[in-house]
Structure formats: C-alpha cells, structure tokens
C-alpha cells in the first residue's frame, strides 16, 4: 500500500498540476463535513485538499451572479454577499460546520429552502472542472439563461468526487428577504401532513416547511417587511394554531448603502424596531440561519433561531446511528417513515425529502423500503467502523453512469469506493 500524500492547491493551475503530477488514485476533500457520506473512500494514493481554493472571483451584484473558488466555505460567501442584500438561497445544515461550495455541490446537499429554490443544482449556473487526465473544462457562465452545450454542472452535482474536481463555481443569487417569520406547531407527523396540505393548498407560499421528530412542524414565511405580518396572521388563522417564532429582522447596512447609492429611497419599508430584540440576543447570526435584512435602520439585531438550529442538528445525525437521506413523493413520506425504525426524523412535507437516523443494521431494509416506494436514498453518515450499505438498488440508467465514468475517468482515479457497488 502506498503512502497517501495530501496536496493543497491554491489556484486552478496548481490544481491541474496536482492532478497531472500525481499518479494513482485521488480522494477529493474539502472541509471534511461530508467525508463519511456515500460509500467509504477506498485507500487512495493522494488526497486533493480543496480548502486552499478560496475566494470570490467575480461578484456582479446587478446581474445577481457570483463566481467562487470551490473550496470557499459557503458561510464565508454568504457573509461577503450580505452587504449587497444578496445571498445564495440555500441552507443545508452543514454550512454552519464550514462546508465548502464545491463539497455542497458534489454531495447534492440541500436544506429546507429547497422547497422554493431547489438544491444547488438549481442555483449553480456554471462550473470549471478538472478531469483525471488534467483536462480543464468549463460549462455555463454568468447568465442565468444559458442553453449552449451540455450542462456539466449537473453531472458533477451528486458525483461525490468521482467524475472530476470542481475548481470554480458560478452561482445564481437572490435578494435576501426583508423579513422572515416561522410558525411552529406542536403535532404528530400525521397531523403535520394535514397542516402541510392546507398550507400548500392555499396562497401562503411558504419558504420552508419541515417537521421534526421532536413533534414540531416549522413553517417559514419570507417577504417584505410591510406584508409579512398580514400573511403570517392569515396562515395562522387558516391553520387555527401555531406559535409565532422569530418575527424578527435585522438591519443590513450594506443593503441600505447599496440602495442609497442607486438612488433608491432609504425607507422602503418598516419592520419591528430594534428595541424589539433583547440586546443580549443581538449577536452575529449563527451561520446556518438564513439572515433577513431590514431596510431603513442603522442597528443590527438578530435573534438566534433555535427551532431551526435544532432542526439542523437532527439533520446532522448522531454518532451512534447511521444517517440516511431519502426522497419519495411527498404524499408517501409519512407512510414510508412510519415503516422505518427511526431514532430521529426531519421531514420536508412539501419536498418529500427526509433525513433519518437509524440503527446501522436497519439501513439495508430502509433502502429497500424507499426504493419500493419509487424513491431515492443515500447514506450520509455511519458510526465509525460500521459497515453500512451506502446505496440502494442501482438506478435503471446505471449503464450510462458507468459509461460517463469510463469516459471522464477511464482509470478510475477519482473517489474509488464512493459508489460501491454501483461502479
């Protein structure tokens, strides 16, 4: 067995050189927040550490696009975008742990905001990748509408480091909503599904809707400072229940400045006064929390968003359990979950996506159950040393997947083991 070397390139050129100058198999590592997701990486000759590939390359606020090096922590990117009142509409739980943009794309991760904005596949509009033979290829660009050529972005999304290394990523941005509010309802999964049907069947346009096995349904609304109160009230009336949480907003002076520079009125809306928030809670936002901006005040105030933090911690799983990410038709989700011996659950009742913690021994049957329901499942984490199947039955297009792998990485250099036993 050869010794593993770690290489930490700092730009596209040195990344390409690293791939070319290395013989044998390569594991790609970012911040390591998903190191044990999917199949376990087989022993490799070299590890390519992408955390030196950081920083914004181009941010075009007027076009609402940004290109970044793939090793940039998304948290850091969001911080840089915030003064412009913009963000990547994406809130996967492990962003708080320092997950990189490239890692989030490669692992096809997503958070509650996927209900409206989808996963990163829906937000990435361009990539630069390095293949196992050192070829540097680009697809997409800085425009949100682009149908020239094949969308290589999609191929890399969910590839778990087996097809190429992401060097640069171009993302579509959205405005940070002025305000957000969450309605929390204590209920069972069955009751939550009924509430979800009411919410989705009406004009409420939730920004996120997740049930957790703590017995809470969280419904987040986002919008303008002026309109949100009425919307929340209407939703609460329709559901006949619900505890209102974090009807807060924080000012973003950068956003104010941007507007002023562009000749916009400084007070386009009014929100709750800064005094609404206890001073002790005016801390920097926890990084997994979606910030909200407030127009026309010069104070910064953010309250910690505890229910969503709790949600994120359940998504991350627990060391003694295996964590499985599943997706089925939303209406089938409660029944599928009821059949699994779950320790904890977060369930997106609008998306059909759930993250469950299970005893490792129950994972194979869980894959089978989800597959029988026409869904997909991927192992996210496993107790140290445990042998747990990462994948369920292979998709019908497995031959295409293998052929793509053979074309792009004929020697099987990247990510050996990640897709065992599929390829």
């Amino acid at each position, binding site marked *: 067995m050869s010794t593993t070397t770690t290489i930490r390139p700092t730009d596209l050129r040195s990344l390409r050189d690293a791939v070319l100058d290395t013989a044998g198999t390569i594991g790609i590592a970012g911040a390591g927040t998903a190191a044990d997701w999917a199949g376990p990486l087989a022993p490799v000759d070299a590890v390519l550490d992408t955390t030196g590939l950081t920083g914004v390359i181009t941010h075009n606020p*007027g*076009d609402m696009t940004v290109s970044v090096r793939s090793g940039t922590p998304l948290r850091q990117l969001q911080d840089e975008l915030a003064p412009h009142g913009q963000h990547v509409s994406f809130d996967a739980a492990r962003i708080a742990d320092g997950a990189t943009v490239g890692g989030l794309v490669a692992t*096809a991760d997503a958070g509650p905001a*996927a209900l409206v904005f*989808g996963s990163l*596949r829906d937000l990435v509009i361009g990539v630069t990748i390095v293949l196992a033979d050192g*070829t*540097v*290829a*680009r*697809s997409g*660009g*800085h*425009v*949100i*509408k682009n*149908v*020239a*050529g*094949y969308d*290589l972005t*999609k*191929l890399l*999304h*969910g590839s778990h480091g087996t097809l190429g290394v992401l060097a640069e990523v171009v993302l579509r941005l959205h*405005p940070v*909503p002025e305000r957000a509010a969450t309605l929390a309802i204590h209920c069972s999964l069955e009751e939550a599904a009924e509430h979800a049907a009411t919410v*989705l*069947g*009406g*004009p409420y346009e939730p920004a996120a809707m997740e049930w957790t096995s703590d017995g809470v349904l969280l419904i987040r609304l986002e*919008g*303008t400072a*002026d*309109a949100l109160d009425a*919307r929340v009230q209407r939703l609460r009336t329709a559901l006949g229940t619900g505890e209102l949480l974090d009807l807060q907003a924080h000012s973003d002076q950068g956003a104010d400045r*941007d*507007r002023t520079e*562009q000749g*916009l*009125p400084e007070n*386009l809306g009014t929100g709750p006064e800064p005094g609404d928030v206890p001073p002790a809670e005016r801390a920097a936002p926890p990084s997994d929390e979606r910030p909200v901006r407030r127009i026309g005040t010069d104070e910064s105030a953010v309250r910690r968003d505890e229910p969503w933090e709790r949600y994120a911690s359940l998504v991350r799983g627990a060391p003694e359990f295996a964590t499985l990410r599943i*997706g*089925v*038709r*939303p209406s089938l989700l409660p029944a599928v979950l009821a059949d699994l011996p779950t320790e904890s659950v977060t369930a997106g009742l609008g*998306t*059909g*996506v759930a993250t469950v913690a299970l005893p490792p021994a129950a994972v194979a049957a869980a894959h089978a159950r989800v597959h029988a329901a026409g*869904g*997909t499942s*991927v192992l996210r984490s496993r107790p140290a040393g445990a042998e747990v199947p990462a994948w369920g039955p292979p*998709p019908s*297009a497995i*031959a*295409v*997947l293998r*052929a793509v792998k053979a*074309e*792009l990485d004929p020697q099987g250099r990247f990510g050996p083991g990640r897709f065992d036993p599929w390829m």
Partner: protein
Amino acid sequence: MSVDSGLGSRVKRAFETALAPEDVIGDPIRCRSYECDGLTGYRVVPELVLLPRDAAQVAAAVRVCAEHGVPFVARGAGTGLSGGALPVAGGVVISLARLKRVLEVDPVDRRAVVEPGVTNLEITAAAAPHGLYYAPDPSSQQVCTIGGNVAENSGGAHCLKYGFTTNHVLSCEVVLPDGSLVTLGSDTGEQAGPDLRGVFLGSEGTLGITTKITVRLLRTPESVRTLLADFPSIAAAGDVVSDIVAAGIVPAAVEMMDTLAIEAAEEAVHAGYTVGVPAALVVELDGPAEECDVQFEQVKQICDRHGCTRLHIAGSPEERAAIWRGRKAAFAAVGRISPDYFVQDGVVPRTRLAEVLDRIAGMGAEAGLRVANVFHAGDGNLHPLVLYSAAAGETERAEKLSGEIAELCVELGGSLSGEHGIGADKACSMPKMFSRDDLEVMRRVRSAWDPQGLCNPGKVLPTPRLCGERPGRYRPHPLEEAGVIERL
C-alpha cells in the same frame, strides 16, 4: 425508381415490424413535410419518417436504428428555431406527435405525468382545475411540446422568477441510443448519484428520446399584477430593470420591446401599445396579494423616477391578456413589416443590455438591415429579429449579421443561446464560447450516452471538418472554394 427508402427495403421492413407498416412513411413527398423545423433555411429530406404510438414503439424503432447504424432525429411539433430537429441525410425522423396523452395530474403531490407530444399549454390546462399550473412558458407554448421543451431546456417570460424546464422536470423516461428504456431523475428533487436528468435536459435530442415526463406543478399565484410602461429611451427602460433588481424584487416577468417590435405587434394585434415610443416594458409581479401590492407600488415609483411617459396598469384579466398578446405576438407580427426575418437568441449579463442593444443597432446600420428587439430583459435573454428580404438578395447578409449578434453576446460575457438551443444553426459558433477542451469534454459525455453517434448527429457540437459547411442544399465549403479540400 423504387419508392423504398435508400436505407434498403430490409431496414424499412424492420421499422415496419417495430411499428406498423402504415406508421412508417417512405414516400419522399410526404417525408418532405419533415425536412425542416422552425428554422426553414436548412432543409434535409429524411429517408423515412416513423410515427410510433407509444414508448415501446419508440424503443423498438431506436433499436432498429442501433442495429443497422441508422442516424435518427426525434421531432415534436417542429417549432424549434435552431434546426435542432433538422433531419440527417440518410437517416430517419422519429415523430413523437402521437405520444400526446396527459397520463396523470396529481394535485396532492403537485405534479403531472405527460407524454412528450403534449403541448406546454396543455399541461397547464390539465392542471388548472386543481388551481395548479406548469411554470416554464415559452412564447410558443400553445404549439410547442414538452418533449421539445425538455430537449431545449426552454424558458419563457416567467422563468426569471420560476426557473427553466430543468428546474421543473422531476424525471424523464428516456429511450437511450441503444434502444434501452430508462428513467432519469426521481419523484423528488433528491437524487442518488450524478444528475443524469440534468445532463439530458437541454441536450437537444442528442442523448436519447424522452417518452414520458414528470413535471412539477405550482400553485396558481393568488395575485398577479401587470403593467405596461413606455420610456423615452432603451437606456431608461434598462435602468428601471436594474432598479427593480436592486430593490430586492424578483418580478415574475420583465419584458422589453423596442420601437420596431412595438410597431409590428400593435399593427398585428392592437394590444394597446404606444406606437412610436423608443421602449416599452412589461412588468409582472405575482404571489400573495399583500406581497404583490407592496412591491407593485415600488415598481410604479421606479418607473416614474425614470421618466416613464405612459403607465398602463392592467385592470382586468382581459387587459392583462391583451398586454401579453402584444408581447407574444411580436415575433410573428414582424412578418408584417418585413418579408423575412431571422430570430436570434443570445444572452448577455443583464447589466450589459444597453451596451449590447447599442452595438446591435450599429451593426444593423452597417449591414443596412433593420433589427427589431423584443426580449426577456430580466434575465438578459435577447431576441433580436434581423429583418431582410430574400427576394432582394439580403439573405446571406442577414444570416451573417444574426450570427455576429450571437457571438457579440458571448464577447460581452453571455451565451450563444438562452432557450432556442444551438442545434444545426450555431454549432459552428460554439468555439467562440467554449475552448477546444470544453467541447472535447462535452463530446466525451455525448459518447458515453451515444457511442455509435446515431442520435441527432451534427447538432450542438461543431464537427471540425464540416464547420462552415451548411447542412441542407449544397454550397461549396470555403476551403473547397479555396482549393484546399475536395469533396469526395
């Protein structure tokens, strides 16, 4: 001369066995109906046209192609404007016109399962009784099919807010070029492994043929507010778009038209546009009523601030429909003011709209041709219409100008195509946008799906030897004319 195809009677019989004899068209006169799509400048008569009735027959037909090395091109309604469904000489066209069933509308999970020959608007019509709709809405939505939308990753006016076909297709049943039937994608946005569905979407029929599509449906917005605003200049209208974006508003649609496009549209459908103004914007907001009202006020103020000369707010669904009728009629309407025209489809970063329009005007003046502009301003997707008269011998000049405009978009940091695709039309421009390595990687991807190269060959990627050689009627290749190469 036999009316049997040049493919040989044995191959034809194999297709007749795979389908039914009456569903295989070999008569050259009838095949001529399929010689081009909406890009009528390029024409190739296929050897055979196949009219399968279901997915199994499509798969059977493709298996015959694979077995006998016959190139094939899938075709829906033929509304594509880049020659994506242009037949291949010596090949067959597989028409999906008969696969037009809406198989399922599921209001609970908000999705529909349809066959590829269903038109875009028919999906929304099927969903409407449940208060749902299908968001991507190409201007040709009344006639274009969802199969074609999948092939081209089509967009439309409302894609600024809601995204494109790729964001709304959950899964596709696909006949691969070897004739096998697979499903790409799943019931949710969640995926296990690389996103093959995402690669297939927008691949312009070069990776396989879709036979069943599951799309996401959205709830019909509670409130829709639409305005039509006139401006003294393109630049002023452009500034309005920038300010709307800067205010953190994501409109459902922002469309812009210039003098020539307005004049043509108004003449055609009398939608209430102001003839003679330099620029008009259609801005539409949708969403919860409270939200819509607040943001609509902001948009009105922004319009005022930039010297809006007339602000017409749709006061009824009929007025809203009229505004959209004007916009959606613009392409066809241009036919009233010019005997012929090319529709181009480039994209620039939104912040460079004024610059690109200025340069297009200059290029048009230099070429002695008029260019009308009607486009998706919110996402920088231009549709310059290059007006010309074939009878007056302006075709070559117009074609050249149209190509130069697309390449200008690339020069300004944009794309050769926003929704119409590359097809046969712009394959030769691809090296302007992508490096040799970029294209080579795309070729490798294509080869993984279609190792025999039978699936819509000659589209999207340039074929180096033939670039400069147009499909369709024979024209000498420039290198041939120069005596460098000879035709074998």
